[in-house]
């Protein structure tokens, strides 16, 4: 039943992308996203598409998995394409009912769709090659400078870590409670909406009780081990910038500068 759902999209591996520091990956993702928006020339898109394809290839993830990440947004991409195709003024190619399809529209539609696809693929690459825990560590580290202004970076990261940690546990718990109530004759899959909503009570009440119990126990366990927040804490796994991170930064900067120069020079 519920346990058949996979949580987190991380696929373990040992590729170049897997070995990059998670902070590097987040920063580079931001740079590339900015580049996709700012450098909107055909040249730049060609290069960025090649880059994305290269990264996917080097990550050794299967194309199927990458395509699946596009699936939830497939309709939005198609819709955006059609809107641009029909609503951009210019030289008409064909006329369908009251819509005129223009060459400019076609170009614009392909452009915007490409942009969406690239954005999704690049962000998916981040979550596919980085474990959720590494991601929260990286976020904490990146938020570090803002601690000065009172941002509780460590606490936020700890909350995220705990939340991630307990998703599978709670799903398992829900599954068990659902089965137990089903064994007592509860039927979740038929009847009117009101009836089905009523069926949720026997699941939600025990689930809440157990979630609170777990939270309480966890707090107690943390306190018993003298947990007192981020100040002065050391880590088991220290994030470390290595030579491949420098190479990645350098490559990204060279690439983006090059594309920017091309854009300014009007190609």
């Amino acid at each position: 039943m519920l346990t058949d759902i996979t949580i987190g999209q991380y696929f373990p591996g040992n590729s170049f992308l897997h070995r990059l520091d998670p902070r590097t990956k987040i920063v580079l993702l931001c740079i590339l996203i900015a580049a996709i928006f700012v450098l909107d020339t055909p040249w730049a898109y060609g290069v960025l598409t090649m880059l994305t394809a290269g990264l996917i290839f080097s990550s050794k993830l299967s194309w199927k998995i990458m395509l699946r990440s596009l699936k939830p947004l497939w309709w939005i991409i198609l819709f955006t394409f059609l809107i641009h195709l029909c609503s951009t003024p210019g030289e008409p190619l064909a006329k369908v009912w009251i819509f005129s399809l223009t060459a400019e529209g076609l170009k614009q539609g392909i452009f915007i769709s490409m942009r969406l696809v690239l954005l999704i693929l690049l962000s998916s690459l981040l979550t596919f090659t980085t474990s959720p825990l590494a991601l929260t560590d990286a976020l904490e580290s990146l938020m570090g400078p803002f601690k000065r202004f009172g941002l509780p970076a460590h606490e936020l990261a700890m909350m995220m870590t705990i939340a991630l940690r307990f998703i599978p546990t709670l799903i398992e718990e829900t599954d068990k409670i659902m089965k137990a109530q089903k064994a007592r004759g509860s039927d979740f899959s038929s009847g009117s909406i009101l009836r089905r909503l009523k069926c949720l009570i026997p699941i939600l009440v025990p689930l809440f009780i157990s979630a609170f119990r777990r939270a309480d126990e966890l707090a107690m366990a943390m306190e018993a081990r003298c947990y007192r927040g981020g100040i002065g804490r050391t880590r088991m796994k220290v994030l470390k910038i290595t030579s491949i991170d420098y190479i990645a930064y350098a490559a990204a900067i060279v690439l983006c500068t090059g594309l920017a120069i091309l854009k300014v020079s009007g190609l």
Partner: protein
Amino acid sequence: MSIEVKNVTYTYMPKTPFERVALKNIDLCIEKNEFTAIAGHTGSGKSTLVQQLNGLLDPTEGEVLVDGVAIHGKSAQAAAARRKVGMVFQYPEHQLFEESIFADIAFGPRNLELAEADIEQRVKKAMEFVNLPYEDYKDRSPFQLSGGQMRRVAIAGVIALQPEYLILDEPTAGLDPRGRRDLLDKIRQLHRKEGIGVVLVSHNMDDVAELADRVVFMNQGKISVNAPPKQAFTETERLREAGLDLPQMTQLLRVLEEHGLSVKTDIFTIKEAIASVQEAIKEGKKC
């Protein structure tokens, strides 16, 4: 009258990288007039197996018949067959949710859409069975009770469904010795007096040896032993493979035997053990 498991295979998350076969071609017949115990270490597939017995999980291959009726699918017949099998999960007190004990135990019968008078009757009977006086407890909140009492309420909630077979998954986990004894006595009563077919999942070999008429050992998704206790506990090698121990009494008697005392080693209760040891000592003196 029996639950028949016919060539059942069950796979978790089929066709994903996380695919795991939990049961492999299981054939098993659980007779109503036998007290069946299922034992095996964590991950041996015993929980998956018992969830097949009342259709909480549908087998990937094979089928399960309750009194000759297949329990899969949406037909009324199948649903009625599933209803014959009650299930008490591990830590059943975690599924309580109602404001009063009465309402919680009545949840099952109410789902069966019985008449109100009938429901009351069943709740009363179930509460009395688990030693919770009806008048004193019916309006109290289940969350004010002690852990052991909560468990009894939860078990009463299943008994109120009046199943013909009852599966209990580690019902004594976390109970104090007295609570454990009381509960096991109740379960034995259910089987002997009410004629309910009981399936007990347990790690505790002493309980298994004492209560069960038939013992099923699970190992890596397969049944490694399926026999009456006296015979099952002679399969030491299989037991060790399955990560299980002998009952303590049997272990003791085996050690005594190794040290030259000619006692019987297929004995599980203290009384029988004492008798056997005394006899062996007498014999020894004669020689």
